[in-house]
């Protein structure tokens, strides 16, 4: 009986978790890609970035500014956390990924892996 209950709880919690897909932009330079994700209300510590093969997963946990005793008058801001999953087309050097959060925008720097860079082949 006990084991059944402990098994059920995490699954149920995961189901109830709702996510919001943030807006994002992609920019490129010589051998890097920049993904800018709009995450208003998310602190630096609350961002979680995972690269699994070619899947880039970004999770942002929103910290509430609403204090106890505040009465809601009008609401538009969602409370759901942010989740963005992108399937990358380019092979990325996972060890050199950089990220920074500034004014509610997360910028992820994705350096192209050596083997994916264009190569000049000389004809003998």
């Amino acid at each position, binding site marked *: 009986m006990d084991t059944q209950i402990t098994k059920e709880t995490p699954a149920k919690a995961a189901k109830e978790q709702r996510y919001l*897909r943030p807006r994002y932009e992609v920019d490129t330079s010589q051998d890097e890609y920049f993904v800018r994700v709009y*995450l208003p209300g998310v602190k630096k510590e609350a961002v979680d970035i995972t690269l699994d093969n070619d899947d880039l997963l970004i999770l942002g946990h929103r910290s509430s500014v609403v204090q106890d005793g*505040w009465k*809601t008058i*009008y609401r538009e801001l969602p409370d759901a956390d942010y989740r963005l999953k992108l399937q990358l087309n380019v092979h990325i050097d996972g060890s050199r990924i950089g990220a920074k959060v500034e004014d509610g*925008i997360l910028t992820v720097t994705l350096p192209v892996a050596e083997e994916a860079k264009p190569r000049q082949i000389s004809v003998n």
Partner: protein
Amino acid sequence: MTLIKYDNYYNDPFSELDRLLEFSFNPRNRLTRFFQETGSRDFRLDIYADDDNTYVIAELPGIQKKDLDIQLHNSVLTITAERKQKKGDTESSFRAKREVTLSDDVRPEKVEARFEDGLLKVTLPKREERKPKAITIN
């Protein structure tokens, strides 16, 4: 070469479900979503109140303090955000403005604004005479 293989909602089954649910059952978001999808750059805001203050919270990611203009005129709060970005030869600009009508009991000289993590928080204190008062019986 593009970075992202293809970006559709099949990558992210949760998000499409959420979008549909939100759109169908949450009339609150219907209008803002409509404007977002038609390309107009509006921003979302919340209004809260307690006994002492009214609070306005707005989502403004990527905006800097100097690009924000907050005006209070006859109990109408106007938030304007403007940004110009230059990258090489291209220049992009962004401008968004929202007006909120608040009750007339705000003390304009005491209004405070803070900006953190892309969230703007404006605190508008209420007038003393409008605050709830406990009445003692003699």
